[in-house]
């Protein structure tokens, strides 16, 4: 799971060149190729009712994106990197998936979903849909979000929130490949309060069991030369993971993404999706392998 090629999906407002530059520390662990992707959504080139599609609007949007990409590409080429670009009219998720397949990208970087709550409920979130349709890791990057700080080294101190699912175990392998740029990993499990019924002794036993499993994960990181520490939290996973990220002064939250059906996530939500969209921390989601 080495990251040699990343797909940088941008609408320009939320992810600019400064955000991309902050990801270039990945060059130290093998990144060679960056592919810019700008999707012009159909609504933006559709004309008012009855008048069809505006070629002129498409050309204007395409060339605006092209001008930005040329500027960014010159900068990366001059650093000896390989660069590609896609500017496509279509649906965001569908075109990102196509580009990721064509390019055989190792990581997809996207901004936070711009859809409103009602739209997400009926149409689904772009991030949820993307995770359901790809087995590539997706980094939901929030470089300069309102309440966050600019990150210079986003991979320096990640927290891995694990629920022992196959996807979170896959996240371990992914993080091992980043050993050259990670200083410390905090491995976190959030236990449900319902798991903790009974005597103080029973609760402590549960904690001990979880801690032992976390220690095993930490050992696999330590074997790769990555410093790692285990942390057990109790309560609502979404709130506790956010709390853990703050307490550990994390630079990134890493999680396996849910295997729940798309419609279930749309109506009931999921921890990875909610963190990806609401947290101020950049969130790296590792989907399970699609068969």
């Amino acid at each position, binding site marked *: 799971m080495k990251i040699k090629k990343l797909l940088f999906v941008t609408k320009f407002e939320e992810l600019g060149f400064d955000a991309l530059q902050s990801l270039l520390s990945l060059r130290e662990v093998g990144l060679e190729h960056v592919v810019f992707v700008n999707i012009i959504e159909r609504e933006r080139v559709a004309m008012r009712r009855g008048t069809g599609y505006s070629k002129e609007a498409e050309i204007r949007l395409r060339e605006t994106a092209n001008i930005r990409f*040329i500027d960014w*590409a010159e900068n990366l080429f*001059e650093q000896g990197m390989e660069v590609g670009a896609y500017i496509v009219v279509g649906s965001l998720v569908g075109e990102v998936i196509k580009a990721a397949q*064509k*390019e055989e990208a190792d990581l997809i970087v996207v901004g936070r979903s711009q859809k409103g709550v009602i739209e997400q409920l009926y149409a689904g979130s772009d991030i949820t849909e993307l995770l359901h349709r790809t087995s590539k890791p997706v980094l939901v990057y929030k470089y300069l979000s309102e309440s966050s700080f600019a990150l210079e080294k986003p991979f320096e101190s990640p927290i891995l929130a694990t629920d022992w699912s196959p996807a979170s175990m896959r996240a371990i392998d992914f993080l091992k490949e980043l050993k050259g740029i990670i200083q410390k990993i905090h491995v976190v499990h959030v236990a449900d309060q319902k798991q903790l019924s009974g005597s103080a002794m029973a609760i402590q036993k549960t904690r001990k069991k979880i801690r032992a499993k976390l220690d095993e994960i930490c050992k696999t990181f330590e074997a790769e030369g990555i410093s790692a520490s285990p942390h057990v939290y109790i309560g609502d996973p979404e709130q506790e993971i956010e709390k853990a990220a703050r307490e550990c002064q994390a630079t990134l939250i890493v999680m396996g993404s849910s295997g729940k059906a798309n419609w279930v996530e749309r109506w009931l939500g999921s921890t990875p999706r909610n963190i990806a969209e609401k947290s101020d921390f950049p969130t790296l989601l590792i989907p399970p392998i699609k068969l």
Partner: protein
Amino acid sequence: MGKKVLVVDDDPDVRLFNVTVLEENGYTPLVATNGEEGKNLAKQEKPDLVILDVLMPRESGIRLYRELKTDKNLKHIPIIMLSGIAEKSFLRSQKVLAEFGDTPVPEPEAYLEKPVEAEELAATIKKIIG
């Protein structure tokens, strides 16, 4: 049949423009939409000239240029770079790659920054391959 000219560009409008200029001036155009396709076609067809874009999907013109200029069977083929990427950036990138240990490559026979007039393109091609 006229001399074969391979056009490598991902933009359909630019490909159409180049093909029209080539046909109007008696050349035989060959077309590829990205660097990877361009490399395969260059190996198969051994064109007399390549017109090459830089910023493309799959493989950039920077990498294809290096591959063509370091392949003993293809390095004699002249190349016109036709791109929105500035010549200065192209040359600097090649220099950086050489500094990283890649083989140094010569400068292209011509470098045209997009957009280009049909007459200028035709004149450049004629100057290089007649």
